[in-house]
């Protein structure tokens, strides 16, 4: 008991908490009011989805609160580190530093937990009052876990920052560095290696895309709009992905959720939280100067922070070419000097600044060059021009960007082809001509089985079939015609090894012989779900047959089948899922759809065979007449989309809004 008391002293905790109550109360009121207003407006939105999501429920208020509440808590509970007067009172009192640190730490944690608890309570009660909404307890629970962890993690990083420095400006820089640097590093890593993943996700204008290239987070924030992820959560999502690629496996395992919630990431966040808190405690004990505007635990640490804060800037801004590098280096040097002034309240010598900044340039280069070497090695090992599995092309607006450069290095390491793409792409944004030229390029090199898979609008124009063999082709593409074109050859996927594709094919063939599989597989139709108005994403296995020169395609949603799913999970750490890291989120929507259909099937008490028969009959009878346009605001409407053998969209039904669908669902419950 005494050892607990030596760590946590309620009196110290309560007194400090009490003295900080004003600001904390204001922060709490703003946060809760924001949640309440958001919930209220959400409840009265006629177009709201039935199953409520975190993002819709919590909104931007929670997103901001994830940063601001921990900062407010830390700034008030540890304010004695910034006030000479208060530090005299606090540090001269007979309270061990250990107790002082952990009591205040616990105070902040309690404050954050109370906030999240109250917010989730408000959320739950407000939403339950609306009979149209379905509020899942699991979602509320995850809301609690996710936001509590995110806030707690930022708080522990803040505690570490305040323990390390006595300067508020440096403190904020430190928080930014500690929170965002792992994410930035991963982003940089990912940009170099898995650039086409980014490409396939870019569904914005060129200007937006260019903007996103300069910031590791802007893209994520935009893309994750409408999702539950918090910035630290995303940062650690990135970190985990870069470390092990395990995120996907957890996501897939956890695919029965409507969100990207992942316990694995929560554990990592918890680990980081504990590490930051422990380091904060260590730094707190070693503080020798309690209050000094320019203080830092050590000059070396200060220098390290300064360099760590500027390396990402320089790397991101100044590494495109020599001229821009020099320009950005000059600007950053001025900022660097300014930072010193703000951090130390004195200008240090220009010579020292120059030397220190040189370290920034060197470190940025040290990050860049090994990456380039690795990328080249990767390209050399995985894809040689002799056995082209896939090549990618991007609109010319991307040319000159890091991603494009890396893309070319990764995929098109044949100088002649690179030149070809550059020349053609420069003239035509859609790179239409480029594709034809590439086709010719390969034909010239005696690639007889060459197949170009392109967005539907260009299929007729660009598709070239040179062989007549059954092929298994693993496809992934975004159907936004302005985003990216995938050109694949020999039916081998971009990421999967030949052997893996073969295994997959064998498994499918086995399942195909079973009743359940053949029933689910519609020869010319595919059930997909819609993510947004103009973006369809598939992760499917297409069985392409060529009989008498006529091509037919059978697509299978990979995750619908247990064996594929298992195989999919077993290779999750390998190239394939790393490539598609960011896109796996769409599985959530698939699963959501699957769940709904499965729910209907269960309610109907039909077996799979009968259910799918009834479903396909209904679709074939009703589809043409039932096409409706989705409301623009809807993001997660479940749809049934039909595609022909050429993967051209034949129409979409939004099942929640469709009366005939409801009739059909009701009819399933009655015996035929």
């Amino acid at each position: 008991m005494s050892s607990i008391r030596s760590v946590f002293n309620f009196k110290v905790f309560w007194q400090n908490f009490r003295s900080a109550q004003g600001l904390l109360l204001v922060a709490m009121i703003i946060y809760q009011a924001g949640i309440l207003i958001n919930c209220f407006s959400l409840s009265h939105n006629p177009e709201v989805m039935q199953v409520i999501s975190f993002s819709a429920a919590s909104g931007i208020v929670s997103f901001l609160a994830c940063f601001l509440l921990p900062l407010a808590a830390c700034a008030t509970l540890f304010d004695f580190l910034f006030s000479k007067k208060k530090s005299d009172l606090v540090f001269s009192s007979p309270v061990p530093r250990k107790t002082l640190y952990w009591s205040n730490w616990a105070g902040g944690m309690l404050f954050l937990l109370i906030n999240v608890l109250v917010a989730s309570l408000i959320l739950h009660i407000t939403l339950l009052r609306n009979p149209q909404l379905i509020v899942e307890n699991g979602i509320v629970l995850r809301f609690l876990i996710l936001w509590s962890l995110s806030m707690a993690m930022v708080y522990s990083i803040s505690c570490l920052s305040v323990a390390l420095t006595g300067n508020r400006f440096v403190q904020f820089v430190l928080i930014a560095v500690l929170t965002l640097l792992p994410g930035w590093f991963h982003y940089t890593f990912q940009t170099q290696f898995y650039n086409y993943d980014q490409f396939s996700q870019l569904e914005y204008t060129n200007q937006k895309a260019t903007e996103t290239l300069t910031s590791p987070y802007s893209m994520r924030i935009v893309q994750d709009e409408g999702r539950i992820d918090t910035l630290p959560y995303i940062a650690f999502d990135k970190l985990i992905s870069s470390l092990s690629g395990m995120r996907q496996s957890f996501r897939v395992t956890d695919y029965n959720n409507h969100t990207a919630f992942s316990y694995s990431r929560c554990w990592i966040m918890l680990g980081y939280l504990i590490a930051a808190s422990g380091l904060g405690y260590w730094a707190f004990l070693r503080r020798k100067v309690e209050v000094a505007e320019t203080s830092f635990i050590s000059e070396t640490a200060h220098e390290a922070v300064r360099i760590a804060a500027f390396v990402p800037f320089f790397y991101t801004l100044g590494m495109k070419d020599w001229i821009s590098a020099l320009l950005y280096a000059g600007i950053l040097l001025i900022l660097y000097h300014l930072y010193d002034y703000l951090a130390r309240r004195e200008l240090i010598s220009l010579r020292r600044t120059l030397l220190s900044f040189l370290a920034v340039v060197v470190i940025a280069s040290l990050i860049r060059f090994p990456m380039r070497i690795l990328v080249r090695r990767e390209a050399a090992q995985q894809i040689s021009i002799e056995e082209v599995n896939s090549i990618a092309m991007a609109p010319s607006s991307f040319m000159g960007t890091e991603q494009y450069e890396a893309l070319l290095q990764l995929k098109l390491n044949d100088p002649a082809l690179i030149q070809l793409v550059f020349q053609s792409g420069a003239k035509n944004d859609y790179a239409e001509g480029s594709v034809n030229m590439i086709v010719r390029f390969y034909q010239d090199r005696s690639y007889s089985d060459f197949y170009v898979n392109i967005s539907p609008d260009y299929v007729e124009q660009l598709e070239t079939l040179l062989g007549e063999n059954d092929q298994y082709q693993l496809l992934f593409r975004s159907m936004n015609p302005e985003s990216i074109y995938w050109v694949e050859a020999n039916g081998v996927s971009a990421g999967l090894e030949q052997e893996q594709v073969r295994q997959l094919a064998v498994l499918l063939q086995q399942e195909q012989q079973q009743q359940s599989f053949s029933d689910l597989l519609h020869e010319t139709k595919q059930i997909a779900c819609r993510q947004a108005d103009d973006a369809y994403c598939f992760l499917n296995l297409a069985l392409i047959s060529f009989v008498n020169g006529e091509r037919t395609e059978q697509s299978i949603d990979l995750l619908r089948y247990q064996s594929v799913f298992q195989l999919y999970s077993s290779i999750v750490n390998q190239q394939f899922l790393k490539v598609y890291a960011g896109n796996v989120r769409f599985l959530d929507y698939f699963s959501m759809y699957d769940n709904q259909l499965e729910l209907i099937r269960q309610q109907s008490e039909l077996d799979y065979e009968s259910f799918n028969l009834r479903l396909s009959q209904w679709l074939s009878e009703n589809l043409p007449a039932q096409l409706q346009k989705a409301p623009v605001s809807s993001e997660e409407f479940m749809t049934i989309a039909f595609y022909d053998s050429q993967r051209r969209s034949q129409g979409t039904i939004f099942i929640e809004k469709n009366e005939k669908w409801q009739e059909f669902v009701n009819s399933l419950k009655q015996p035929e």
Partner: protein
Amino acid sequence: MIVAENLGKKFRNKTVIRQMNCSIKEGSIYGLVGANGAGKSTFLRMLAGVYQPSEGKAEINGEAVFDNAKIKKEIVFIPDELYFFPNYNFRMMADYYASLYEHFDHHRFQMLCDHFKLDTRARIQNFSKGMKRQGALILALSTRAHYFFFDETFDGLDPVMRSLVKSVLSEDVAQRNSTVLLTSHNLRELEDLCDHMGLLVEGRIMFESDIDSLKTEMFKVQIALPNKNFDRDEFRQLKVLYYKKSGSIATMIVKGDRELVTDVLRSKQPIILDLLPLSLEEVFIYEMEGYGYEFDSLRL
């Protein structure tokens, strides 16, 4: 017993306290004086455990103070700039101190507040500087600690309150044998309260002594000798800190035993000889001059 041994404190590249040695006995009231920036407050903060010494040690009863809760229970530090929690009154502050100091005496607190006519239920932020200072002193004395460190103790107090504070402090030391360490710029304030004084110059204690010795060992001498052309060399047997001759009369500040000094001067058969006592302030000024500091501009 408070002991500072080779104590040093550096802030980045600036050394504030260097190789400081000092010992303060139990039951004494020790006054620490020094110029602005001499390091008085830093020294107190190290003794109070606010700062960790960069070198050397600061000990009380043989134990280091820094992060030592056991020792710090016996210490109260009242800094020059006071801090009270926002919106607190003195009663709430008393509760705060009581939560930290297990021997906090609420009865004494109330008694002292009555004595100083302080309203314990009024918000502290509405009080004047002097009243806040009184409140801080009352809170400190109510903790029943054994070591009190007061920085700029009498800052903001009117003469009546100064006298009252002095009497309360003296009473506490007399009754409980507590030890008080005070700093002040105003030597006269400490003169009638402290039994020991130390002079802090550029982070070092230049000299320390008890007040009585300080006063009895330094004099202002006015002397005229039969030989009008005498100079400073005439008095080389004495420790002359300051010498100035105007006409046939020389004015000197002499350090040493009063009787010995008188005997030496009388042996010169002076026409005029006056030995005048010095105020503590003058003692310190001349002592500091002895260390090379010039205060001519201050002397009238």
